[in-house]
Each structure stands twice: as structure tokens, then as C-alpha cells.
């Protein structure tokens, strides 16, 4: 077993562990902890990205997600200063059925994945570094348009956020 594989297992394990902790944390039900673990998940995933030679994305992952997005989350949590989520009655039926459904999905996905007809080139050597992605983005036409649209999307988001959160005028 070579190093990358070990690293893969390590990061994969961490990702899933932290992910699980985001969703269901046995020790604390405080959203803050969930947020923190989400940050950790993202970092672990960044590791996986690196293993997949997606260096730029790994960076973006850390910067944008762990950096910007999660800060935003935490900021909101603080703003609303959500208390420890007091235990409400857990509806067991919901949990069982929900988990059942998810199990089903997982089963189907894994079944598909291990369906054994994935095509993967023997010795992949795609390097997703900034230069390559930059070239992709700005030379291949097919990404230009989405890029522009995303800018509109961001504008919409800005307008929306302002509208939704500006003080109500009486």
C-alpha cells in the first residue's frame, strides 16, 4: 500500500467522520459545533482534492468554503445567537423512515458505482492547477457563458440579500 492510498483512506475517514459529526453530533447539538465540523469536513475534502491533483480547487475549497461561506454561517449563528438546541421529542418514526430512505439511496448509489463499468484511464495525469483551469475557463467558449451568468447570479444574490435583510421601513 503506497502513500497516496494511505492518505486517501485517512482523508476519506476524516471527511466522513466530520461529516457525520456535522449531521449528528452525540455530544453537542449546538449549531456552532456543526459549523465547525463542517469546516473540518471541507478541509479534509481539500486533502482529497489534492490527492486528485485538483490543487486549485483544493485552495478554493479552503478559501471560499471554509473561509467565506462558513464564516458567513457562523456570523449568522452568532447574530441569531442560537442556544443549545433544546431537545424536542424525537419522532422515532421519522428517524426510522428517514434513515431507511437514505439507506436505500446509498444502496442504490453504491450498487451503481460498483456496477463495475466505470471507465478510468490506466494512468491518469490531469493536473488541475490554476494555469490549466484558467486556460480552460477563458479559452474554451463553453465556460465563458456560464461564467457571465454566474456574475448575474451573484448580482441577484446581492440584491436579494439587501432586500431581505435591510431594516423594514415603517
Amino acid at each position, binding site marked *: 500500500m503506497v502513500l497516496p492510498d494511505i492518505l486517501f483512506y485517512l482523508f476519506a475517514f476524516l471527511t466522513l467522520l466530520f461529516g457525520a459529526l456535522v449531521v449528528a453530533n452525540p455530544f453537542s447539538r449546538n449549531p456552532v459545533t456543526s459549523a465547525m465540523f463542517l469546516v473540518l469536513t471541507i478541509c479534509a475534502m481539500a486533502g482529497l482534492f489534492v490527492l486528485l491533483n485538483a490543487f486549485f480547487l483544493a485552495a478554493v475549497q479552503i478559501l471560499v468554503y471554509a473561509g467565506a461561506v462558513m464564516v458567513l454561517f457562523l456570523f449568522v449563528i452568532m447574530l441569531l445567537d442560537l442556544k443549545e438546541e433544546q431537545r424536542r421529542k424525537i419522532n422515532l418514526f421519522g428517524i426510522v423512515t428517514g434513515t431507511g430512505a437514505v439507506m436505500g439511496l446509498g444502496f442504490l448509489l453504491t450498487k451503481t*458505482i460498483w456496477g463495475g463499468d466505470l471507465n478510468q484511464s490506466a494512468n491518469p495525469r490531469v493536473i488541475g492547477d490554476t494555469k490549466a483551469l484558467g486556460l480552460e475557463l477563458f479559452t474554451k*467558449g463553453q*465556460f465563458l*457563458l*456560464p461564467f457571465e*451568468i454566474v456574475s448575474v447570479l451573484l448580482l441577484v444574490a446581492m*440584491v436579494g440579500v439587501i432586500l431581505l435583510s435591510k431594516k*423594514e421601513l415603517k
Partner: protein
Amino acid sequence: MNASLIVLELAVGLLGLVVLVQDWFTPAKDRRTLGYGAVLGVAVVLLYSFFAFDGTETLYAFGNAYVLDGLALWFKRFFLLAALLVLIMATEFSDRFESGQSEFFALTLFALAGMMFAASANDFILLFVSLELITVTFYVLVSFLRRRVESLEAGVKYLILGALSSGFLVYGIALIFGASGTMNFNELAERVAGNTTGASSKLLFTGILLVLVGLGFKMAAVPFQIWAPDVYQGSPTPTTAFLAVGSKAAGVVLLMRLLGTAIPDLAFHLEKLLMAMAAATILYGSLCAIPQRNLKRLLGYSSIASAGYLLLGFAVMNRAGSSAILYYLAGYLFTVLAAFTVIAVVVEKAGAEDISALAGLAQRSPLLATSLTLAMVSLAGIPPLAGFFGKFLLLKAVIAEGVRWHAYYWLFAVAVVGVLISLYYYFNVVRAIYWSKGTTDLTPIPVSLPTKFALGVCIAGMLWLGLNPDGALEMAVEAVKSLKLVA
């Protein structure tokens, strides 16, 4: 790469920006003018679209990510017209937005741009991005009335479920990409046909199904319809209207592209699934609407049912079926917008959204009464209105398939049951209009000129599509030519 093709979208986007900017320079009292300005702008774009393109040949741009063919053009015009009417409605409605009227117009325009891009999407990335543009805009539009908690609640529900669906969508795209190694519809089609995908069909299929989930959510098709009633009820009426027409149509066009361009050779595998979904959707929408008293919610359920009828066309998925889809959509546009325009006015007056708010409408405003009656009759699929011919085409397509496979007769039977049930609640509305229990106030409702215009357009459209279907049907047939369909 001829970027000039996106001129229509650009125009709309710029219009949005102009409205936003102009907002600074216009005092609050005459913000309405911005709305009318936007209406005018859209109208101009709509007209221009007829001069600029004829959609006979298929044009590509941005590395085949963007296609401009008959279908795209048809839907662009469809969206433009819808937005036009919705904007009129919104302008009339805008006193309810104590702030940010012009933002509402601008956002509507951006959503419109998103829809128009979606109509031309020929690539999963563009599909995703334009869909997200639509969705995110609608998050805002749905929750626009911050005063009303219902509006916000609807917004959150739409947000969570929308995000969930786009999660599935994205994962589906990922799987498709993984299976085929491309994001482009045409290449995907080639690879499927040439079977150079390493035959990773299972992966591909799962991906397609997950994309279907995302689009089904937009169309409000069972089992992804669950959000529709709440959101329709909660959001401001113009938004509901745009949601019912635009966002549904966006889902439709993308699904058409997916089945007709991206995987024409695999589409037939989805036949049974689509049939089942159609049947379930029709029944769900119709049955749930029976006991419904809230007008907007009622229309929410009815729009689910309509999604079911559209799915009939997808299940058939031949030229007859798909052109029928377009025809039905066209009729649906006028019908639903007429209904929502009336409801917007009535609800504003009565303050209640209950059917009983319509009591005595016949005396209060004959125009509104007539329009709503016609809308209901058309939705019920009764001559001489658009809804009839649309349903007729769809059902005809279904029965025609029945010759090949008898299951289609059962599908037809289900559709008939749906129609019957729908008659029940549509006529409930009509009765409410004409049957005033006397105690209701019969003060006449004033109808502003633009609203009259909008209603006029809707009624004209309904009658035109119902009485003289020839031209419109030809257009629809032309539009679907660009899809790979069995004749």
C-alpha cells in the same frame, strides 16, 4: 463562435440593470413607471425576437454550449410573453411591496434572462447555472413580502427543497459526466449512439434520473411536487404566476432537451417511468384540489395536475406528443396568467384568498368575472378555448400510442378521471363567481387599463389558440423539429 446569438438575453439582463440603476433616480411614488418601462422593454425584445431570428436553422455558440434553434426561440418568446404579463401584474400589485418595487421588476427580468438561457442550454454546465439563476432569483421573489410571514415561510421552504433538488441535480450531472466524460448534449448523444461511453450505462442512467429529479422539481411533478402548494399559496401573486408558468416551462424545455437532444436513444427506457409519473401527477393534483378553498393553493394543485398532462406528452415523446406539449403550454400561459391576474385584483380588494372572496364578482366586475370563467373553462379543457385543443392534442397522441401498447389506454383513462375531477373544482370556482349569497358587498371593482390590456391579451390568446389552432400548431411543430424524435 457567434456571441451575437445571446442578444435577447443580453437585452433583458441590461434592462434589469437599467431598472436597478434607474431606481435611484426615481422617487418612490412613481416607481410604477419603471414597471411599465420594463414591460415596454420586454415587449420590444419580444418584437425584436421576431425580426432577428426565424429559428429555421440551428445555430451554436460558446463551444456548442449554447444553441439557438426553433425550440429555443419558441421558448424564449414564450418566457418573454409570460414575463410581460407578469410584469404588468406586478406593476399593478406593486403597492403591496412597501419597498423595492423596482428590485422586484429587476429580479423578474433576471429570472427571465435565466429562463431564456435555459431555453438555449445545450450543455449541463449552462443548464445548471441558468437553472440556479432562476431558482435563486425565485428564492428572493417568493419571500418578497417580508411583512407576511407566509411569504417568508414559503421562501424558506422553497429554499431548502430547491437546494435539495439542485443537490440531486448536481450529483446527477456529476454521474453523467463521469459516465460519458462530456457535459455537452450533442457529444453525449453521439457517445451514447456510438456507445463509446464504455457502456457505463448504469452510472449514466442514475445520473439522468437524478437530473430528472431536478427538472421534475421545477415542473412540480409527482413525487417532487410537494413544495408547490405551500409556495404558490405563500408567495406574492405575481411571483406565483411567474412560478407557475415560467419556472415550470423552464423545467419542460430542459427536459425536452435532455430527452430529445442529449439522450434520444435512451429516452425510450424512461417511457414507463414517465407514464407512471404522469398518471400519479394528474391524480395527485386533481384529488388534492377537491376540498381546496384557497384560490392560490387551488391553482397550485391544478398546476401540479397540468404538469401531469405535460408529462403525458413526454411519455409519448414523439413529434405529436412534444408539439402537443408546446401547444398545451401556450394555452396554459394565457389561461393561468388570466386567472392569476384576476385573483391578484380580487385578493387585493377582498383581502382574503378564499373562494368565497369571488362571491358576486359577476356584478362587481363583469370583465374579471368573464376572464376568470374563461380561464377556468379553458383549464377544464372545454371548447372553444385553448385548453381544449391542447388537451385534445395530448390525449390524441396518447391514444395513438395505444395502438402500439395498450397501457396507453389506461393512461388515457387516468387522464379522463383527472379531467372529470378537475371539472368539479373548476366549476366550483365558476359557481362562486356567479352565485352571490346576497350578503356580500357588491361594490364594483375598478380595473386599471394595463390590467384590462393584460386580460385582453390572455382572453385573445385563449380564443385564438382554441378557435384557430392552425398557425400556432405549425409553429409548435417547427419548434420541435430540432429534437431527435420519431415522427
